[in-house]
């Protein structure tokens, strides 16, 4: 089994899809010769040329919209939005157009478009390059939203996104790009809407996405020393959501923590908490705890930034609180 970084896993998947299928092409800002601002598409331009690895002007609306148009003609474009903060510029196209063409046409159209984007704090880019906005898109019927947290998941999920007949927004996290792991030789598609149990436990379920999966693993290690057995579940896809797996886990442990790097208020965790209380109310032995960024934009100064974003200690505190050992 090869060892790939998260970055290499994404690149590997894009290349594999483009080799397999002429309808797949990628476009975005600085993705060609430069290889993308995060280096994800390095080498693709050399292999596939300028027609299929398309450098675009800085025009997020038009890039996304062109992706929609090409997708409606049966192609499978993969659009890179350099920072998810810039999704705001393409919001109209995503929300009003991509998400709704199939619906408004009464099922006549399909929009097999993949949007790849990345974001996340922890390296002091400031308030306009570090947000986590995934929750906004979960709110829009017609869009699918995924947020893989590991190289293997990034491969399997991106592949499924490309071959899904709906618009799928795949969130990547800047700090996850260098992490490495053994991945299957051949890309194994991961169905959208299938959660992964990261580790099994009996006392509390932590439902975490993106970087918080890793921070939760760290927190769970510390909790274990305290005799608390933590189960960690990574939904991987936020829409559709694998409610069944999440609920089953919580029915087993009777306690839940939801964790993401996005601000807690109105975050994806709020949705998960609502689903859990509806589906597993009679199994809950403690209020569901939420872990997320404090309600503030992301500051530049590292001390402030680190204060705002959730750390393993925050996950640990939430775990302890649910098992009645909070301070």
């Amino acid at each position: 089994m090869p060892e790939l970084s998260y970055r290499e896993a994404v690149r590997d998947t894009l290349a594999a899809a483009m080799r397999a299928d002429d309808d797949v092409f990628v476009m975005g800002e600085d993705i060609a010769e430069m290889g993308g601002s995060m280096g994800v598409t390095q080498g693709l331009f050399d292999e596939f040329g300028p027609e299929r690895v398309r450098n675009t002007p800085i025009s997020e609306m038009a890039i996304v919209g062109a992706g929609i148009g090409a997708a409606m003609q049966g192609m499978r474009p993969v659009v890179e939005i350099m920072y998810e903060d810039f999704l705001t510029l393409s919001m109209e196209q995503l929300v009003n157009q991509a998400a709704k063409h199939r619906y408004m046409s009464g099922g006549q159209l399909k929009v097999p478009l993949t949007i790849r984007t990345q974001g996340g704090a922890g390296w002091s880019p400031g308030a306009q390059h570090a947000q986590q906005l995934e929750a906004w898109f979960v709110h829009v019927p017609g869009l699918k939203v995924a947020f893989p947290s590991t190289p293997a998941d990034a491969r399997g999920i991106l592949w499924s996104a490309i071959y899904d007949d709906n618009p799928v927004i795949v969130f990547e996290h800047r700090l996850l790009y260098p992490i490495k792991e053994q991945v299957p030789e051949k890309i194994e598609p991961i169905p959208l809407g299938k959660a992964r149990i990261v580790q099994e436990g009996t006392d509390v379920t932590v439902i975490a996405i993106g970087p918080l999966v890793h921070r939760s693993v760290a927190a769970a290690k510390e909790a274990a020393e305290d005799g608390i057995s933590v189960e960690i579940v990574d939904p991987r896809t936020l829409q559709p959501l694998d409610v069944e797996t999440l609920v089953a886990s919580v029915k087993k442990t009777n306690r839940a923590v939801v964790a993401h790097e996005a601000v807690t208020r109105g975050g994806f965790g709020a949705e998960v908490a609502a689903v859990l209380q509806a589906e597993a109310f009679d199994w809950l032995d403690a209020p569901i705890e939420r872990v997320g960024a404090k309600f503030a934009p992301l500051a530049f100064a590292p001390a402030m930034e680190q204060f705002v974003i959730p750390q393993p200690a925050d996950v640990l505190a939430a775990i302890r609180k649910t098992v009645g050992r909070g301070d």
Partner: protein
Amino acid sequence: MATEVKLPRLGQGMEAGTIVKWLKAEGDRVERGDPLYELDTEKVTQEVEAEASGVLLKIAVQSGEVPVGQTVAVIGEAGEAVPDPGGARHRDERVTPASKEAKSSGSEVAVAGARHHDRSGASRQQANGGRIKASPLARRIARERGIDLGGLSGTGPDGRIVAEDVERAQAAPAAPAALPAGDVESIPLTTVRRTIARRLTAAWEVPVFELVVSADMTRANALVARARELDPDVRVTVTDVLAKLAALALVRHPEVNVQFADDAILRFPRANIGIAAAAPQGLVVPVVHGADELSLTELATRRAEVIGRARENRLRQEDIDGGTFTISNLGMYGVEQFVAVLNPPQAAILAVGATQDRAVVVDGDVVVRPMLTLTLTVDHRAVDGAPAADFLRTLKSFLEEPGLAL
């Protein structure tokens, strides 16, 4: 400016009280400090004093259970408009049925130095307006197994009953069949009765062991007689001697003067001796604080005061708070010996039987002596057998030779 009289919180964990009767009528002049109404709380029935002077303009709640903080009356100047206490009405309607259901509290212990238990439970419970705080899972298990959550104390955050608490509790017997028509009298539970039931049920969950010892009461009886002779006004009793000597023994064996508190053993420097008493409203345990430092007559005086108030149903909150050890004496009823149920969160209770002349062997001769049988019930979570036995041996020696206690 009219003053709303709100139901006060008179003790830790108190969520509601039952107004028994009003001591003033609408239109009466009241002075600050005047007894205004009688209130039955979980522990005691007491008179509540007016906090303002003026005319009692309106009694909003004549009688019945009221959550803490609800307006029960209005005091103001004659002729003054009465503010609408309706703000509380909605809450009242919402709250009352739930509070009738039962009460929960893991935090009603109020021992000096033991506030640790409380966290913010009391105020939260108050905000709950009497609703039992239990997790959905705990509720489901309780529902499925027919367990009354009201009988449980919660170990979760803020005293919440969690699944583990219910798992620990024994399933209640199946609901009784409908009452047979005719002679059976159904006596509604008073707040005090309900509290007794709940606390003793909780006590039943504690793993205990019992130690039995008999003491020769010759010298102790002489001490009682001598004390009465010296100070006829204060009627010193065997119970007083027991309380005093137990207090001194506890100070010598602080490992028994403790409470189990989940994550710690609380050990108390002084001995506050609770004395179980039969009061009209039921069992109460008034406390003689600092019994180890009181003289026998002082102790007897205090004991007489609090027992007196208990019998008159006039106990004050401080009369029942803070006990570290309880003595239950049924000797006056001729009971030879018995086992007492723990008075949580205290770790030990002493059951005292009747002093009887029995034949005992002393130095090889069979002689008749006044013997008293004592049974100590101990919370094994907090106290092991050996220290408890050691304490009991000390107590026995003190009773047999009070001078040793000096």
